[in-house]
């Protein structure tokens, strides 16, 4: 069956370091992948979308890679700050046209400490 895996254990990192979060998937061939941020008690907020032919996408301190051979996406936050502490969700696009939908991973909680 199709599966999206994100590390369920929290990632603890020191301020200023680079945080790297992993999203692995099986039995999927998504052409698009999205990353969201979710703070406690709030809805997810979109961060980045990457297409299968883009390999890498950047936005300010964020970088996403998409390796369709490894079936993996990596999400990097450089120069991390305590305000980056949140849960990060990856989502794969399934289906086409009006039937296209997002399937989410369970998320990885990032804790950035001083």
């Amino acid at each position, binding site marked *: 069956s199709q599966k999206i895996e994100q590390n369920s254990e929290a990632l603890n990192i020191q301020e200023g370091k680079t945080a790297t979060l992993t999203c692995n998937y099986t039995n999927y061939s998504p052409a698009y992948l999205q990353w969201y941020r979710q703070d406690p*008690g*709030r*809805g997810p907020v*979109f961060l980045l*979308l990457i297409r299968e032919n883009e390999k890498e996408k950047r936005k300010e301190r964020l970088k996403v890679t998409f390796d369709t051979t490894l079936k993996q996406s990596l999400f990097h936050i450089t120069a991390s700050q305590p305000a980056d502490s949140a849960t990060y969700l990856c989502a794969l696009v399934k289906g086409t046209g009006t039937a296209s939908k997002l399937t*989410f991973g*369970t998320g990885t909680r990032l804790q950035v400490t001083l």
Partner: protein
Amino acid sequence: DAGITQSPRHKVTETGTPVTLRCHQTENHRYMYWYRQDPGHGLRLIHYSYGVKDTDKGEVSDGYSVSRSKTEDFLLTLESATSSQTSVYFCATGPGLATVDTQYFGPGTRLTVL
């Protein structure tokens, strides 16, 4: 939250009672979605709409129905609530297809079924 409101924000109800959750958007987005979020499962799609009166099932649609009579409103109904439907429910909207566009999430509704 891109002009998305959900009501009620919190609800406690008893098993067997009907429950309706409302999502209202002011963005004129074509696509609307209902998700539930549970520990260990992440966000799972219940139903979605790709236009007024156009709806379809998601991954976990059993026990739920939806209606969309206006662009701005998307209702989720639990005909006879069960304890397994205790969850946090998120509405999301999108201007375009999930393949190319982000989804904007509401603040969520916490539903407890006793």
